[in-house]
């Protein structure tokens, strides 16, 4: 039984098919990377899973029970945490209080009181590397730190599945390394992860599977290294002509390293 099963999920906005019959499974312990050009429907997919959108058709199952159409807070308490691509902290609160909110409301069993939630927040903040800035007001945090805070708040819920929406976007080389290290620690703590990312180093470096979306449809699914070599993926990102020009004269396939920087062209906001 899969932890999460997405079956034929479609979502339309006016005349746009944001998602068209997307199907995939996430198993316990997976790190699934979702990639695709801007407007491919990646964030829409995450919004459907976390309950902010109700899919038009199809079904989303959590441990074999339907969750599509359920209120977001109930889905959260089942053990599905998420971050937002454009960070959404609670601006009047400190880093510690922001994190504590996850522990205060997101737990599946038993309620915490504010004091206990704050104590739990400290543990999580150490894990994501914000321990020393716990008393900062959010407005004083840098962009990478705000992204960390998004992860911390979701982790404080003690989720079993964590949905990460571009936590590495906009970070420099060193910051990406640090963030990668953080995601590895999260994985090792036993959390299953689905992440949207444009930074291919992340997809190759941490995911055991990758799913490519294009115009709301599943283009390719498989091991990251193979997916990134796929001609259809290169086409989707860089156009047919480019893909053709990259076609090797011999049978030797293009290397993963060779493709790394290309998809970053499409990196920017989508929501």
């Amino acid at each position, binding site marked *: 039984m899969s932890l999460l099963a997405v079956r034929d999920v479609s979502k339309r906005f006016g005349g746009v098919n944001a998602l068209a019959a997307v199907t995939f499974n996430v198993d316990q312990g997976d790190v699934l990377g979702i990639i695709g050009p801007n407007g491919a429907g990646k964030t829409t997919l995450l919004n459907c899973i*976390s*309950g*902010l959108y109700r899919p038009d058709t199809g079904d989303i199952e959590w441990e074999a029970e339907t969750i599509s159409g359920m*209120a*977001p*807070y109930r*889905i*959260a*308490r089942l053990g599905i*945490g*998420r971050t*937002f691509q454009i960070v*959404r*902290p*609670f*601006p*009047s*609160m*400190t880093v510690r*209080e922001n994190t504590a*909110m*996850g522990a*205060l*409301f*997101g*737990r599946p069993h038993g*309620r*915490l*009181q*504010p004091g206990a939630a*704050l104590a739990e927040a400290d543990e999580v903040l150490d894990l994501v590397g914000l321990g020393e800035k716990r008393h900062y007001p959010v*407005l004083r945090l840098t962009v990478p730190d705000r992204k960390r805070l998004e992860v911390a*708040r*979701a982790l404080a*819920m003690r989720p079993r599945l964590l949905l990460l929406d571009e936590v590495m976007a906009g970070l420099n080389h060193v910051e990406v390394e640090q963030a990668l290290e953080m995601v590895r620690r999260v994985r090792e703590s036993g959390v299953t992860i689905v992440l949207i990312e444009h930074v291919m180093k992340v997809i190759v470096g941490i995911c055991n599977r990758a799913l490519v979306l294009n115009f709301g449809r599943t283009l390719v699914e498989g091991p990251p290294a193979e997916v990134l070599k796929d001609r259809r993926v290169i086409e989707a990102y860089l156009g047919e002509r480019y893909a053709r020009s990259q076609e090797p004269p011999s049978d030797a396939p293009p290397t993963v390293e060779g493709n790394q920087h290309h998809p970053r062209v499409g990196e920017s906001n989508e929501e």
Partner: protein
Amino acid sequence: MTAAERRLPSRVRRSVVAIAAVALAFVILAPLTSIDAAQQAGLPLLTDKLWFRIATTVAMFVVLASGWNIIGGLTGYASFGNVAFFGLGAYTVGVLVQNLGWPFALALVAAPGVAAVFALIIGLPLLRLRGHYFAVATLGVGVAVGEVVNNVGALGASTGLFLPIVRSDLIFFYLMLGTAVLAVLTTWIILRTRFGYGLLAIRENEEAAAVIGVNTTFYKVAAFCVAAALTGLAGGIFAQWNSFINQENVFAITDNVQMILMAVIGGAGTVLGPVAGAIALELIIQTLAGGGSGAVYSQIGLGVLLAVCIIFIPRGVIDFFGGRSRLSLRYFRQTLRETSA
């Protein structure tokens, strides 16, 4: 550390404790002093009917501003329909006492209940709206309920309702004061609980609140109901105190604007902001509106005051006087930067 403590600098807290102690002493001592004894002892305040009237009105606006603060300040939903809760509370007492012959005490218990049930009914659909849409929709409800009451014969229609007169300044002063204390205490407790944190989360980012597990619909409606109950209770007391109610005096939109001004000028989202705002603004209104033509200046003065406050001290006087650096340009620059988008 709780949300309330963080918002309240220690300097303010100390002075507030001092003021509260004085007020409490007065509350305990006043009933022991009969009017005659007060005159002999040279306590002019206790013998002055006007003073009682003003003090009771101030206490009433402390309740209204604090009630509005729970939905508008803590939850971030600027309601222009709170005056409907006030009016419904007043009419509940009016009808139960006058038409059905209930004792005032019993009718007063029903008033917050009726207001809260009404908040539940309109809250479920209206709290799906955000920002201006919510404000306009609640404004519509406030006006509509007043118009309905104005046209129902059993409620006295446009003539209004007359209640049996109860002559006791002291009783109504203490009832209002007690309700004001209840309203402040309710806010204080809310800010210390899980419920309060949920409301703050909704105010600061509703979608983020939802995906970390806050039942946003329930929290918003519950906050609306608590605000309505407090406001309805004040309305119920007002009905018997004034012994005459009609559409104009209990469903006045200007009262709704006034409670918002008090909460915002004092400091929305804080425990004591609405208290400070209500006391300061009501006293200013009473002072300015002394004579007939004074009323005009009072309105102009209020408008100017509001504009100045919103621009320069958008976080309210509580933050300003207890704030990081008093009366300096730096404070103005900083708040301007932090509060403008």
